């Protein structure tokens, strides 16, 4: 009977669980807030682009409980995240770490902005110089103006 209950619980778990369950939440609000913040940065591995705080999946539930257990055991936020990464790989991190090749990712945003602004500066500078050199009217316009004035 007990085994049946366990099997049922496992089978029904994905349907029954829904995001953070009241039963999972910690009594200490400060600790719970930390747990929530950590959870929002961890990916639910079996879902598509959902963090474990929002996910209904059974695995997300397990991870939420694990995060809270580690916090109760006295880990710092960093240690909790490292603990999870050690087990599941950096794939769980929704905010990729700024190391190795990821530096390209992190550098790309400011890099592209600076590059773009640099292009604009060069362009404006060149335009300005051109503006000083070219006459106000092109030869063609000059001819047309002359014709209009004649009429």
């Amino acid at each position, binding site marked *: 009977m007990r085994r049946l209950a366990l099997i049922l619980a496992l089978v029904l778990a994905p*349907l*029954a669980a*829904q*995001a*953070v*369950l*009241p*039963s999972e*939440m910690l009594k200490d609000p400060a600790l719970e807030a930390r747990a929530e913040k950590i959870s*929002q*940065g961890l*990916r639910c591995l079996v879902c*598509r*682009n*959902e*963090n474990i705080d*929002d996910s209904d999946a059974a695995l997300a539930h397990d991870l939420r409980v694990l995060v809270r257990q580690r916090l109760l055991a006295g880990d710092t936020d960093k240690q909790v995240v490292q603990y999870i990464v050690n087990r599941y*790989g*950096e*794939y*769980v*991190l*929704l*905010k*990729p770490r700024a190391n*190795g*090749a*990821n530096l390209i*990712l992190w550098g*790309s*945003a400011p890099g*592209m*902005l600076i590059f*773009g*602004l640099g*292009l*604009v500066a060069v*362009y*404006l500078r060149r*335009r*300005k110089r*051109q*503006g000083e050199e*070219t006459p106000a009217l092109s030869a063609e316009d000059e001819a047309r103006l002359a014709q209009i004035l004649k009429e």
Partner: protein
Amino acid sequence: MVTELGHFALVLALAVAVLQMVIPLIGAQKGWTGWMAVAEPAATTQFLLIAYAFFALMWAYVTDDFSLRVVVENSHTLKPLLYKIAGTWGNHEGSMLLWVLILSGFGAAAAVFGGNLPPRLKARVLAVQASIGVAFLIFILFTSNPFVRLAFPPMNGQGMNPLLQDPGLAFHPPFLYLGYVGLSMAFSFAIAALIEGRVDAAWARWVRPWTLAAWMFLTIGIAMGSWWSYYVLGWGGFWFWDPVENASLMPWLFAAALLHSAIVVEKREALKSWTILLAILAFGFSLIGTFLVRSGVITSVHAFADDPQRGIYILAILGVFMGGALTLYAARAGAMEAKGLFGVVSRETALILNNVLLAVASLVVFVGTVWPLIAQMAFDRKLSVGPPYFNLVFPPLMIALAVMIPFGTLMPWKRARLARVARPLWAAVALAVALGALAWAMQTGRSALGPVGLGLGAWLVAGSVVDLLSRSGRGPVGARLGRLARLPRADWGRAVAHGGLGIAIFGVCAVLAWQVEVIRVTKVGESFALGPYTVTLNDVHKAQGPNYRATVADVKVSRAGALVTELHPEKRFYPVAGMPTTNAGISRGIFRDLYIVVGDEQADGGYDTRSYIKPFADWIWLGAILMGLGGLLSLTDRRYRVAAGARKPEAAQVAAE
């Protein structure tokens, strides 16, 4: 029979598209008017044929024709009629058919309404448009044919993903596609201009309405999607930085950049080659979006198709069109001579900065979206790039943009003095800072997000008001109001759209910063406090829908003893798909939404309840609607309604009309 004819019409449409692609292009090159004239009837015929095929498919859905594979896979006799109709495009095959329908629709619209286009340009535009049609019609017919029959039709279908059975989502794809595909017009005009070797004010005036329309549809489409996720996903999230959402955001940002830079070409004949490049990139990112969504290369909440063959084909389309377009661009862009001169501080410069910020924002989203792919392929690292990354790199660009907008709108063309531009804006600055400070003082110890959002929102709205007022001249109030009413609609459109952006920014920040959340187990009859409100769970009972079973809760919300609202959140179970969905109980308000979800029964007989106060949530979509409305106002501006080329007969090479 209807189905066979539909299939046949689609094949015929491909043949017509091939003709439309080849003949007018040769005609335009050789100057043969007869060959050029083929483009127009071909464009309308192609559209009618595809429309017939599309309605044949819809007919199959409505009449439950289970001899068609797509109908079996995506429909069911019990499905409500609305979703049978929407089911036509609710899957890969049907949605690609919708894609080409809209593509040919834009082509036909250009053929019918483009009466004042120079014949040569028109022939080229329609030929380029047809070439995109050819690529996608081949794609549909050979890899995703919706008209494939089954030898042994089953008695009933497999149903549609219940999450998608929602009125908001039923019309989300058509709007999105109108936007994506609308950008193909800008692309076709850009390629035609490159072949022609000339871009002038008249060209920009023809391109801008199409871009505006596409951007407007994209705005509404994206807003509908986020509106849907707000009430369907069960906790009121409205943007997830999901690859599929990013796929629509990237072309939206590029389209926004394009419609601003097209103004510079139109009014000042500067930034020509940049505008052409933007037109190519905007459509390129539409194609990338189609690729990301349709290939399932980055699996996400929305991707229903996981077939590599299709992905490779779309990638090939993307490669051919972007490669071809950019090669042509590299060869010809040098010929686009800029004319209008301008100072460093000028409206032109402001619009260039706008373009840089929007383009960089789009590229930042792009890099973040594809980075997991690159990291895996090139560096063998399996990693995720999620909301925390995007929330860090994207908002600074938008904040910079929002700070700049009111200055930009008040800048005169050619040369401006910053001090003079800033003078009428002091009131707006004061208002924004005061409101931000007030919010900061009222909230204690919370993030700066709320005050910043309020300040930026007020700045943009007040900036738009100042923008309009500054154009009403001087004199008595009555005369100024009269002049205000007679302002060109483009001016109103600009002010409304920028104000809408401010309202949306405020909504997003307010909801993220000031949301109140209570998650607990509640027994029937029990009450609990949610901020100033008291929430009572009165009853939970079962109910039966047309194609689902539901558990419905009766929840009463009161404040200081007075009843505020009664909500009925549901949890539905769709037996055909074997999937549950959550329907939140939402009481909408101008200042706050009450958002209550009642989940499953817990071991102790209580129910898992999550309730939220979401301050100013609806302002997000109000802002989006205003942005769309601004686009519409601008689109109906007189200068697009009167013959676009008429004022510049020489440049446009049009005979007098």
